[in-house]
């Protein structure tokens, strides 16, 4: 079982060129901030490194931050063998939201990433099947969980606001 600081140190030693950061100012868990385009490599290392073994992705959620012009993705990881947990966060430009997919690492990420794409418009690069999931496939009025989203007046000729 490892603490967030130790996990951060291990990652820093193995990815000296990546821009990693540990934020400890939260009332609950610490967050480890990683670069969005390297998250696949970092995830693979987290899963396969014998002292970390993060074999399970508990949760993956998109978050919108219009003030900072950012879209973020939070990854909650857990090791079922070593019983430790960590929260990762990546932030990407709101106008060009691109994050590497982690579906190769944890297959369960597939639908979570599709949901983040569906509701926030985050593009997961190299995702095998990036389609809308909860909204209709032909929804073209934007991404509903973005803070500046507005309902369209009509969808397929049906009036939306009721």
């Amino acid at each position, binding site marked *: 079982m490892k603490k967030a600081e130790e996990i951060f140190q291990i990652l820093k030693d193995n990815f000296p060129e990546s821009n990693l950061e540990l934020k400890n100012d*939260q*009332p*609950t*868990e610490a*967050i480890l901030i990683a670069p969005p385009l390297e998250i696949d490599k970092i995830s693979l290392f987290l899963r396969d490194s014998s002292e970390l073994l993060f*074999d*399970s*992705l*508990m*949760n993956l*959620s998109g*978050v*919108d931050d219009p003030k900072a012009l950012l879209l973020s993705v*939070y990854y*909650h990881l857990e090791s*079922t063998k070593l*019983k430790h947990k960590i*929260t990762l966060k990546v932030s990407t430009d709101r106008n060009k939201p691109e994050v590497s997919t982690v579906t190769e690492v*944890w*297959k*369960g990420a*597939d*639908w*979570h990433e599709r949901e983040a794409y569906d*509701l926030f418009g985050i593009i997961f690069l190299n995702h095998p099947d990036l389609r*809308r*999931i*909860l*909204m*209709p496939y032909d929804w073209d009025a934007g991404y*509903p*969980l973005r803070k500046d989203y507005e309902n369209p007046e009509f969808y397929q000729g049906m009036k939306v606001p009721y």
Partner: protein
Amino acid sequence: MPQDSVLNTKSSAVRTEEMVLNMGPQHPSTHGVLRLELTLEGEIVSKVVPHIGYLHRCFEKHCEAMTYPQIVPYTDRMDYLAPMGNEFGYAIAMEKLLGIQVPERVEYIRVIMAELQRISSHLVALGTYGADIGAFTPFLYCFIDREKVLNLFEITCGARLLYNYIWIGGLSHDLHPDFVRKTLEFIKEFRPNLKEVNDLLSHNRIFIDRTANVGILPIDTAINYGVSGPNLRGSGIKWDVRREDPYSIYHKFDYDIPVGEGKYGTVGDSWDRYYVRVLEMEESCKIIEQALEQLPDGDVQSAIPKRIKPPVGHVYARVENPRGDLGYFIISDGSTSPYRVKVRAPSFVSMQVLNELCKGYMVADVVTILGSIDIVLGEIDR
């Protein structure tokens, strides 16, 4: 065992073609509105693509427009077979963020309710699973007992299905004076009934032939997909949030974590997933009995905050719901409504493994496998 591909067994002179079959959205065995796009080679499934979202009610979007206590009744409507568990998880997440310590009586009552809910939810899972496969009688037996649990909820909070009972910091009502007696009576009646269901369904030769060795889920695949709850334990790993990431007062009780053993087939087949649920109900009875015995006195509303305004930050908390690991990720911006709420619904995650499980089986086995995963569309679509 998965069947060999038709293409390999027939001579090459016979022209074969893949066929796409839509199962649902209005199919009785899909337990709600779910569409499965099956790709078939003859009667053998080569690919399953689930299409979800028919029941999407924008839970996460609604949360951003409501105050924290207003969200509680909405959580009921996700996994509508286990609303107590949903409320429990939300309350735990909020209490962690706010730093509230709830009175001991509240913790005990919450555990009793969550375990009663587990029994009622598993009874629906068992009953409908039997009905999917063609055994209609056990369905009725299960629903008689479920009805009794719903009666217990009714005398507690007035509602039978959607309770709004577990609030942030407390409960909406204290227990009814008759609750302890009636619950003990229920457990006394329930144990022999459970045996009857076992005789009718679990060890029924026809049922075993339909479920054993069908839809085998290896442990590594299950963990990689994030499958949790009885589906994961059916694969033979003793992994339960109540043990691995203890919350509330579960550490005070003595209970087992049943796992699949491959009694009639291979470890991790549909029968194992089914039978883990049967065994879990007995463990829930044990927890309820112990909790009722130790139930302390106290005020169940003393810790409910007048105004809920959590500090800026985020929290992730989870509980073991009947369908698995239910997680709440809440981000607060310091105002009275959340900035973001994300729910990690156990069925949403378990559903992804369906394609892996169904490959190589017959169309009729898709119904068996889907029933053994025990999904609730309300929480998949939210």
